[in-house]
């Protein structure tokens, strides 16, 4: 069966005055899969999502969602998408239930459907107890969940998640991930933006890395990791003497060494043979090491090698968008 792309952007360009935010972004999302748009702050992730979800006009390129043109057929696009933005867009003074029912009605659900679906989502998202409290009393995690529930009220087949876990504590993040995974099991097509490599790695089928308004890499997590890397073996020594001897003994096999940590790293191309070879060299010269670690390349490595910048760790809190 031919692949069916539900979201397609070709040569997407957008400028604010002389500041070109998107410099020709291409991306495709296959039906029933998740694409993660990964990039640092200011890379153009939110701009891309806002264009794809009909909120923003653009200067060049072609964009279609479910076959509809996002400019000419914005209304049709809006009836098949759900959007969860960075700042939780719920009505603070309305209760969780009222928010859901109102948004359901605005999605053109009949009153009965909206009420029933609201009940179902409140249960699913663990918001039953808080259902009749105004949303302003909700915690950050609850608010995000309500926000996501609101965008699912009419069960749209396509969901945009713009940094859904930014600023959440680890527990809320895991809860959010569980919900997103369940959505994927139900066959929803998802476009997720994130600055967290771990998130893209955990959830997405495909990843597009974007920086400075350009796509700098794309592929599955495994493919991207394959681009940078081989596994590495890191050996830690107890003293400077052993460290120096090891460096000498391993010679040009040393890929990296750290005199402060007394650690030596070698590249492993063929796991068992290369590890054995390294250990044999040390054993022959009776050099003892203290500990040994095998590093798999992470998306962080990918990111670093592609952009020259260190990616953010989930623990760091991100400032709101401009």
């Amino acid at each position, binding site marked *: 069966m031919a692949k069916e792309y539900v979201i397609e952007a070709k040569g997407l360009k957008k400028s604010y005055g002389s500041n070109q935010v998107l410099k020709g972004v291409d991306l495709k999302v296959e039906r029933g899969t998740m694409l993660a748009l990964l990039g640092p702050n200011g890379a153009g992730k939110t701009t891309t999502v806002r264009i794809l979800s009909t909120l923003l006009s653009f200067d060049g390129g072609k964009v279609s969602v479910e076959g509809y043109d996002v400019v000419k057929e914005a209304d049709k696009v809006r009836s098949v998408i759900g959007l969860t933005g960075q700042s939780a*867009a719920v009505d603070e003074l309305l209760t969780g239930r009222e928010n859901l029912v109102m948004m359901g009605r605005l999605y053109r659900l009949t009153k009965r459907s909206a009420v029933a679906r609201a009940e179902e989502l409140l249960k699913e998202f663990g918001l039953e107890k808080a259902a009749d409290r105004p949303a302003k009393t909700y915690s950050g995690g609850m608010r995000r969940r309500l926000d996501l529930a609101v965008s699912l009220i009419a069960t749209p087949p396509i969901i945009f998640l713009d940094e859904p876990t930014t600023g959440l504590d680890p527990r809320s993040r895991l809860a959010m991930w569980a919900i997103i995974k369940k959505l994927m099991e139900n066959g929803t097509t998802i476009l997720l933006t994130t600055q967290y490599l771990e998130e893209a790695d955990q959830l997405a089928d495909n990843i597009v890395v974007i920086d400075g308004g350009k796509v700098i890499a794309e592929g599955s997590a495994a493919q991207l990791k394959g681009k940078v890397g081989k596994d590495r073996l890191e050996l830690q020594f107890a003293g400077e003497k052993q460290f120096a001897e090891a460096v000498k003994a391993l010679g040009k096999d040393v890929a990296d060494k750290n005199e402060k940590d007394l650690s030596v790293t070698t590249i492993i191309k063929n796991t068992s043979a290369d590890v054995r070879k390294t250990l044999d060299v040390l054993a022959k010269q009776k050099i003892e090491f203290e500990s040994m670690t095998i590093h798999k390349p992470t998306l962080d490595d990918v990111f670093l090698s592609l952009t020259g910048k260190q990616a953010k760790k989930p623990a760091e809190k991100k400032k709101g968008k401009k």
Partner: protein
Amino acid sequence: MAVQLEFEKKPKLVLWVMDSLLMIKRSSTHIIRNTDQLLGTFFQPIMFLVLFATVFGGAISQALPPGVTYLNFLMAGIIVQTVAFGSTTTAIAVANDMQKGIIDRFRSLPMANLAVLNGHVISDLFRNGISTAVMIVAGLAIGFRTNANFVDWLLITGIVLLFTLAFSWLSAIAGVMAKSIEGVQWLSFIVVFPLTFASSAFVPLEGMNDGLKAFAENQPITHIIEAIRALMLGWPVGDHLWIATLWCLGIMVVSMVVASWLFRRKTSH
């Protein structure tokens, strides 16, 4: 999926009206839940009425036509002033929506986005209606007496409603354009304060200097106040009623068009 979803299949126009009704319900719920503002709705008019009547009453009553008490004179002015100030909450409500993410949520829905403005304007009509009713009751309690008959009251109600709509739409423009909530508050303050004070709301125009008097005599607020005052006190209404009606309709239509246009422009780029 357990719940089988059914969608409304109605003509577009009906759906647009339904959107507006939903937004009116939303904004009205805001008014009820926003307890601080609700207190203002009830107590501010009473406070103004009592303060003005007691503080200025003695001094100003000398300048009034014989037989007219200051309280009876003041009633029309204080109603219009309260409504004018009250309508600025539309600006704040609209600005609130524009600043927060919720406007993006609405825009990503297949709804008629202008319903958001309709909701705030119409629900403000309810709130201002309540304020006005509270004030009239409070006035009656402290000695306000009126010669108005049923038809006069209908006319008064009509002109107050029209005035509220006109000013709410006007303040919706401020709400759409505003960069911050504080900005809106200041903007409405510097528009509404001079307009209501440089009018016949609290004092007869006779005592004003020529320049101010010329402005006050010809600005819409004075016509609106004079029309209501004449209807309440059984004075001849003269040209005030139709001039006031034209002003209100004019402001309403122009503001509606401008606010909607600005809103569309702001929400579609």
